[in-house]
C-alpha cells in the first residue's frame, strides 16, 4: 500500500489549535462518525460523504445557484435558500458559482501526502511548543486506512501525533495505529450502556472495552468527558467515570463543558437541533473539577 496516496475525506484543517493535545497543533477533521450524540457540536462531521451547507447571512440573493443546479434542488424561501437534500447529488456546481460563499462544501478528498504537506508547514511552531498534529472528526477510525497512513507518515517525520476518538471502532484498528500515536484523547460519555445508547445511538461496551485494552497496552490516554447537563453529570455517573479512569490506570482527564455553538450548523445542513438544555454554570464545572481532583486524577476544564 502506498500510504502517501491513501485518500481521506476531510472537512477542516485548523491551525494554532491550543486545546487538543500538547503545544501548538494542527487539527485534521475527518468526516464520518458512527455515533449520533445529541449534543454534537460538529454535525457536519457525522455523515461519511460530502455535504453542502447554506450560510444565509452571506447570501446576496443573486439567484445563480437556483438557476444553475442541474437537479433543481435549490429553492428560495423567506429564511434563505434551501437545498432539497434528497435531490442534491453534491456535485458542487452551485458552490463553485457562489462567489459570496453562502454555499460551501463540507468534505474534500485529499491524499495523506497533501495533508501531511499542510501539517508540516507549521513545523516551526511544533518545534517551539512541543506540538504536532491531532486527528479528529467525526470518528477518525471510520477512515481507518487514512488515519493509519497519516499517523505513520507524521511519526516518520518526527511529529507529535494525537487522535481524538470516540473509541467506537474495532480494537485491531486502534492497535495498528498505536505505534504511531503519542496520545489518545479518548471520549467516555457515559458508563451506563442503556443511557449511552439512548443519547448517542450506540452502546458503550466496545468503547469501555477498547479503553481498557488500550490502557493495558500502555497507550498514553487522556479521557475526555463532555459534561452534558442532565445526561452524564449525575454524581453517580461522574464518580463511576473517575473510578473507571483510575481503575484502567489513566491519570489525565479533560472536562469539556456542553455548549451550543454547533446549533446553527444544524440549520445550515437542513437538520434539526433537538437539545434544549443550557451549558453548565462555571461553578458547577469547578465543583466537578474539584471532585475529580480529590479522587486523584489530573484534570482540566477544556483541553490542555
Amino acid at each position, binding site marked *: 500500500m502506498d500510504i502517501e496516496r491513501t485518500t481521506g475525506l476531510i472537512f477542516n484543517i485548523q491551525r494554532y489549535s491550543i486545546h487538543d493535545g500538547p503545544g501548538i497543533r494542527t487539527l485534521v477533521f475527518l468526516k464520518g462518525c458512527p455515533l449520533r450524540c445529541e449534543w454534537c*457540536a460538529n454535525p457536519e462531521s457525522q455523515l461519511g460523504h460530502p455535504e453542502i451547507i447554506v450560510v444565509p447571512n452571506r447570501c446576496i440573493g443573486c439567484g445563480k445557484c437556483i438557476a444553475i443546479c442541474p437537479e433543481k434542488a435549490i429553492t428560495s424561501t423567506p429564511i434563505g435558500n434551501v437545498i432539497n437534500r434528497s435531490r442534491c447529488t453534491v456535485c458542487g456546481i452551485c458552490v463553485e458559482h457562489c462567489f459570496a460563499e453562502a454555499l460551501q462544501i463540507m468534505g474534500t478528498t485529499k491524499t495523506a501526502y497533501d495533508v501531511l504537506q499542510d501539517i508540516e508547514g507549521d513545523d516551526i511552531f511544533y518545534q517551539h511548543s512541543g506540538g504536532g498534529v491531532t486527528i479528529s472528526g467525526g470518528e477518525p477510525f471510520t477512515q481507518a486506512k487514512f488515519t493509519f497512513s497519516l499517523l505513520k507518515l507524521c511519526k516518520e517525520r518526527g511529529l507529535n501525533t494525537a487522535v481524538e476518538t470516540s473509541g467506537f471502532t474495532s480494537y485491531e484498528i486502534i492497535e495498528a495505529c498505536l505505534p504511531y500515536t503519542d496520545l489518545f484523547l479518548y471520549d467516555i460519555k457515559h458508563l451506563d450502556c442503556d443511557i449511552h445508547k439512548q443519547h448517542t445511538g450506540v452502546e458503550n461496551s466496545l468503547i469501555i472495552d477498547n479503553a481498557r485494552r488500550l490502557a493495558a497496552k500502555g497507550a498514553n490516554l487522556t479521557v475526555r468527558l463532555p459534561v452534558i447537563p442532565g445526561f452524564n453529570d449525575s454524581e453517580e455517573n461522574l464518580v463511576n467515570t473517575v473510578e473507571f479512569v483510575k481503575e484502567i490506570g489513566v491519570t489525565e482527564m479533560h472536562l469539556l463543558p456542553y455548549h451550543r*455553538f454547533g446549533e446553527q450548523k444544524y440549520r445550515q445542513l437542513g437538520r434539526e437541533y433537538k437539545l434544549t438544555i443550557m451549558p453548565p454554570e462555571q461553578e458547577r464545572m469547578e465543583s466537578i473539577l474539584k471532585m475529580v481532583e480529590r479522587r486523584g486524577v489530573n484534570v482540566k476544564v477544556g483541553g490542555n
Partner: protein
Amino acid sequence: MEPTLRVKSLRKRLRSFPQAICVERAVLITESYRETEGEPMVIRRAKALSRILEKMSIYIGDGELIVGNQASAPNKAPVFPETGARWVAEQLDSFATRTVNRFLVTEEEKKVLRDILTYWKEKTVLEVAPKLLPDETREIFELTYPVISPTLFLRNCVGHLVPNYAAILKRGFGGIRTEVQEKMESLDPSMPENISKLQFYRAVLIICDAVSHFAQRYADLAEQLASTEDDESRKKELKDIAEICRWVPENPARTFREALQAFWFLQLIIHIETDGLAESPGRFDQYLYPYFSKDLAEGKLTLEEAQELLDCVWIKMNEVIKLSDIPPAAKYFGGVTMSENLILGGINEDGEDVTNELSYLCLEADRHIMLPQPALSIRLHSRTPERFLLKVVELIKTGGGKPAIFNDEIIIPSLMSDGIPLKDARNYAIVGCVEPTPSDNTNGWTNAAMFNLGKCLELALHNGVCQLSGKRIGLETGDAKTFTSFDQVMSAFKKQVSYFIKHMVTMLNTWDKVHAELIPTPFVSSFMDDCIAKGQDLAEGGARFNFTGPQGIGLADVADSLTAIKTLVFEKKLLSMDQLIDALSNDFEGQEDVRLLLRNKAPKYGNAETTPDLLAREVGLFYCREVAQYNNPRGGKYRPGLYPVASNVPLGGVVGALPNGRKKGIPLADGISPVHGCDVKGPTAVLRSVSRVEHAAATNGTLLNIKFHPSALKSENDMKKLISLLRSFCSLKLMHIQFNVVSADTLRMAQLDPENNRDLMVRVAGYSAMFVDLDKKLQDDIIERTEHML
C-alpha cells in the same frame, strides 16, 4: 507589586487636567527670534531655547518625586511656531471645538497667538520648502488624491531619535562643556571649515548653561516649597528634590534617583526644543541599570522605591503632549501619539543577553500606569529568558496592545546590511513605532513619508488616471484592458512605483536641506554622537549614521490584487481584463458578484499560500530596492520601511477600487499584515506568509498586528503557547509583532461589518469558531463573555 498611593494619586491627577494650549513657549521664542535676527541660525536656536528655559513657568506637583514640566500645567501643549505657525493659525478656531483631540484655548490666548504667528510668516519649513520643488514634483506634492504623503517633517520638526542619554548620565553637561571648550581651543579659527564648527560649539555652550540653570530653578522652587511645607515627610522629599536638581544634569548622576531625574530633564527639554515626535528613550533598562544595581547593592534603594520612582517617570512621560495637527477638512481623525519608544531586554554589544531586574520593573511600571507613553517594546532573541516572556505575555493579556516585540535575530543583520557595524547594530533600539535604529548616534528621519503602493496599482490599471479625480497624475503605462499577460500588469505597476519614488525623494531631500537651514537642534545634538566630535549639528548631518526612511503602504492589498488578476483573469479566465477594469472604474457598482469573485475565489496573502505570499515578497522587495538606491543631503542613504502608523486609513481614502475586491476609499492593510478579514487560517499561517516578505530589505521597519480573542489567552497553558508562538516568530526571523487582544467593542463592530472581520477567531474550551460565522445570538453571548475576560 501594586502601585503606591502616591503613584495612584499622581496618575489620577494627570488625568484630571483638560487638554489645553499653552502660549508661553510661543511668546518666548518669538521674543528671542526678534532679538537675534541676523545671527547664525544655530546660535539663534540655542538662545531661543535658553530664553524659554529661563522664563517658562515651572511647577512641582503635590507628591511628585521626579520633577520637570513642559508647559504651564499638565496636559497643556506648547506651541512651536518655527514649524507650526501656519497650521496653528489655520486651525486656531477649531482646536477647542474638535470632536477628538480637543485643546482648550481662550480668546485672549488666541489673540496673543495671532499676533505672534504673523511674525513667522514665510519663515517656516512648511512655507519655504515646497516652493523649492521642481514644477513636476510640486504638482505631485499638491495632488488632492496623493500618491505620496511627505508632510510630517514639513509641518513638524523631525525628532525620531535615540540620543545618548548615558553620556549625560555619566558626564553631565559639565563634561560636555569641558569637551566643547577644549575643542574650541584646539580649532584654528582662520580655517574656513572651522567657522561653522565654532558657531555650533558656541551654541552648545549656551545650551549647557541654559540646561543647568533650568535645573537650578527647580532646586530653588523645591527649597521654597520645603520651607513652607508642614508635613515632615514631604518636606524631606522636597529637600531631596532640591539637592538632586542642584546636582544633575550639570554633574554625573551618583544614584538611581539622580539618574532618573537627569533622564527626565533630557527627555523633557527635547520636547521643549522642538515638536519632533518619537524622541525615544531606547534601552532605558540598560543605561540605568548600573545606577540601579549599585544603589541596590549598597542598600540605598529597595525594589519598592525603585518601582515607585519608575512609575513616577512613566507618569511624567504622559505629561508631555503635543498639539495635534488635524486639518479641519480631514476625514479621518487619529490621535497624536508621542511614540516615545522605550525598549527592554535583548543582547548587548558582545552578544550576551542583558535582560535584567530593571527590565522587569519597567514592565511592571507599564502595567501600573496603563497610559500611552512610553511606546513599550521588548527585544526578543533566541536566548531571551522564559521568565521575561511570561511577564511580557501577562502584559499583552491586559489588552493594552503593549509591548511590541522586536526580533534581534533579523534586525541586527539587517542594520549591518545598511553599513552599521556589528556593535552598533547589537545596540539598536526602536524609534517611534517600529523603526530599528542604532542607539546614541543615528539621525534616521525614520518616518519621512508614506508611499501609497495601492494608489500606484490603481494608476497602473488605469493608464495613469486617478479614479477619484479623473485626472492623469501618473505615467502612461498603457491601457490595461489590452494587456494580454500578467507580466504587463506587473511591469506597469513597477513603472508607476519607480516614477513616484523618485519624486518622493526629491521632496524629502528638499525638506532635509531646509531643516538644516531653519531648524538646527543644538540641545539634542549636544548628546548625539558624533555631533560634538564633528562640530556639526544633527540637522546638518552631525550624527554618525544618517538615513531617510519612507514607508510603503498597502502591500497586502497590492499582493492580493495581483493574485486575483493572475489567477482569475490569466489562469482560470473567469474574468477578462476588460470586465475587471470596467468593474473597478465603476467601484463595483451593480457588480457585487464580480467583487465577491475577486474577494473570495482567489487566494489571499496571510494564509500561507504560495501565489499571494510570493507576490507580496516581490512587491515589497521592489519597493525596498528602489528606495534604497537614493541618498540624502546629510551624507546618508535611504532605507525603506513597510509600516503605516495609522496612515493606512487616510491613504486608503484616496485609492479607488482594487482587484482584491476592495471598494474605493476603504482603508488599506496595516503594514505587512494581511488585509482585514482575509487571513482566515489563524496566526501561524499569518506568520508564515509574512515570513516570505524580505524583512532584511525593509530596514526601516515592518509592522505586523495580530488579533487575539481573550479566550486564546485564558489559562497559563494558553500563555505558554503564546510564548511558543513568539519563539517561532523569532526563528522565522520576522521583525516586529504586536497583539491586539480583541475587546467586546471590536466584536460589536464585527457584527456590523462581517466581511472585514472574518479573521476573528474565538475559542471556547477546545472549540474554535470564526466569530462572524456564528449566529447573532451566539455572537451576543460571546460579546458578553469577552467583557468578563479582559
